[in-house]
């Protein structure tokens, strides 16, 4: 569809284009690396949040008597990995924090359970048991609060936000600080 004169111009273009691109790369990429100020990745932020939550929650069940504050992670190895880097040496009040991977049969002595999206299907069956034990259940999928989750991560405006279910917190005998509620993206079941 192109006539002769035009065709010649077209053939030259990709070669020139490639040369320019290659040049750009070789000149600039070093300085680019040096100057980049990275933005955090989603799973890192979530892990930091999970750790932070511990400081804004009062466990009114017998969990409050345990010597350490225990965080469990189900089906989210990335987050467990990050938590493992966060918790050493940190405390909530005067309690040291532990983080471990768990399976549904092993929920003993957990204060917080983070359930990754890959294990989302387990929540509906587990919810009652988790509330019974007084565990703060943190999730990361749409509709998790309806299934018995207490705090659910959502992404809004490229930021990690979280929503809170007050009825679920009440069932698990958790007292959430007003600062936590104030930062929440959405609070479900507020009077």
């Amino acid at each position: 569809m192109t006539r002769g004169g035009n065709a010649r111009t077209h053939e030259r273009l990709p070669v020139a284009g490639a040369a320019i691109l290659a040049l750009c790369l070789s000149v600039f990429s070093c300085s680019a690396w040096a100057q980049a100020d990275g933005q955090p990745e989603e799973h890192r932020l979530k892990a930091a949040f999970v750790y932070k939550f511990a400081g804004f929650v009062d466990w009114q069940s017998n969990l409050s008597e345990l010597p350490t504050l225990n965080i469990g992670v189900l089906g989210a190895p990335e987050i467990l990995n990050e938590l493992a880097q966060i918790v050493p040496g940190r405390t909530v009040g005067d309690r040291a924090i532990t983080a471990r991977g768990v399976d549904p049969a092993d929920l003993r002595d957990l204060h917080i359970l983070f359930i990754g999206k890959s294990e989302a299907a387990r929540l509906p069956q587990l919810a009652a048991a988790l509330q019974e034990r007084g565990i703060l259940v943190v999730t990361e999928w749409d509709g998790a609060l309806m299934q018995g989750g207490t705090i659910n991560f959502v992404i809004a405006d490229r930021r990690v936000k979280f929503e809170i279910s007050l009825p679920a917190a009440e069932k698990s005998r958790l007292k959430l600080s007003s600062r936590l509620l104030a930062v929440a993206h959405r609070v479900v079941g507020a009077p």
Partner: protein
Amino acid sequence: MFRPEARMTSAIAESSKPLRSNIGRILFSAFAWTCPMCAAWGGVQIYDAASLADLSLEQLSNLEITSVSRRPESLSGATASVFVITNDDIRRSGANTLPEALRLAPNLQVARLGSASYAISSRGFNNALGNKLLVLIDGRTVYTPLNSGVFWDQQEVMLEDVERIEVISGAGGTTWGTNAVNGVINVITRSASKTQGALLAAGAGDPEIANAFRYGGKLGTDGSYRVYAKQYSHNDDSEIKAQGYDWQRGQGGFRFDWDGDANDFTLQGDYYEGKSEEREQPIAPGFSLFGDTRVSGMNMLGRWDRRFDNGQNLRVQAYYDRAEREDELAFQDVMEVFDIELQHGVPFGRHSLLWGAGYRQAEDDTEPGLLVSFVPEERKLHWLNAFVQGKFNLAENVELTAGTRFERNDYTGWEILPSVRVGWKPSPSQLLWGAVSRAVRAPSRIDREFFFGFPGVTIIAGGPDFRSEIAIVSEIGYRAQPTENFSFSVTAFHHDYEYLRSGADPDVVGVPVFVQNNIQGSVRGLEAWATWQVARSWRLSVGLNLLSEDLEQDPFPPDPDGLRNLGNNPPQQYLLRSSWDISSAWEFDAMLRRVGELPDPAIEAYTAVDVRLAWKPRRDLELSLAAQNLFDPGHIEYVDTGLFAVPTEIERRVFLKLLWRM
């Protein structure tokens, strides 16, 4: 024209193309060489887990994350075929105009006719008229009551400030009214509170130059504003192009948002002007007989949202839109639209109810061109509508949405647009849905009051009895996210049409030929897309669109052009896209689009490859080089069936852009 709550953010799919070709290899080797040296540089501030843990809750929730790609919200309960184009998708596509950004949606057919004119449609019937698609920009309906279509050369937004574009294929009449027969495009710009500070986007290339500037600030504690201006020009040296091809355009506007506890208020407006080059004619080159095409317009919209403690919400929105078009060859028109709408959402238990009403008025003043006129030249049209829609949670994971809309127009009176949608979530990561809707394309001036011909002879005349085109739309869809890194959406549809627009053969019925409703039949097809996050820094997306039309013209009066005038659609279309974050400072994007052969008039299939390389030396600065149509000097995407239609070859495009957020 409000959308009921259930905002959709669907499983996203774009497309990709892994590196290949010489350019790919050169890039790769250049990168491999420079990389080892970088290791010597230190001081890169990376947020690791431990440093994040030292931030406050508030600070954490204000941090932007890099990978929007891993969208945990990607699977929603929307019981419709919805594809969402995000702000980031637009930026990474290198698009400079709204229609080019729409190419990202696999459920749209986008074909460029000229520098600024497009044929855009969903599920077939694609032509420059495009009268079965509803387009909204921030709640403002932008189709013209003249022909129920969209003049794409008159619609633009500041792309950097777009929050997202929702492309919904299928009928949306219950929610959005007549015209939403085959689809809805919903362009949503960011609240002024999210576009604070200055942004400069400056770029030039062949054949485009595009510059835009925005500034946003605070007004008091709850108020924020932004003002913007953008300029665009297109100068092509293509030899195969229509007269009046080259094009330039300017636009400016503002948005004010006030976000209170229970009340939100928005006021926004735009002004634009555009102009084509002078059109020569073949007899005496250099002498402009038909002049240029000029467009201009302004709009102003106000919206008030009120949330009540009992969960109810109320929205009132009103806007004014004025659009002028001067084209001596075709026609001249000044169109003024006024629209006011109200919407009220009422939750009761696990269910919810949404109802609303609206009034719309369009007043236009046309002047005949050389070939086209509207009689009467001046016309005032009115529309009234009311709708009600209920959302019922039948069981834990089954939701039924049923509703209807009543809409009155001056030509055919009351039209009814009901729909029923059911969604079933067998697990949190799967959704199976189905819907049946009745959609209506009500007559517009071009159907009833249009005259085409030469002085003294009318060849085509609007049909005094032209009635609404009707579609019964059945859809079934499945969306799932089987693993954290993979999601997909598949929708199958069947549309049954009655009373589609047709003409007649002047040799049989004599002139003038009246516009009538003598075509019926069905359109079937499949829309699918998938996204695969291959690695943390690499995302692949694919899109697929299959379409099969079975339309039939009544035997009498015969209309040899009837079917081809309804549109020209590729039976298949594929999209492949790759988004690769080479490092925190470098991005490489590639998109491959394959569009099948258009049947009538026959237009060759084409494959277009677009690539973009971006470098972000600092968080506030981005330099990008984009090439569209990389391996193809030019192709024709569409030829109008009109008398004076001239095919235009869409050429390779190269564009260098600077984006600076201050």
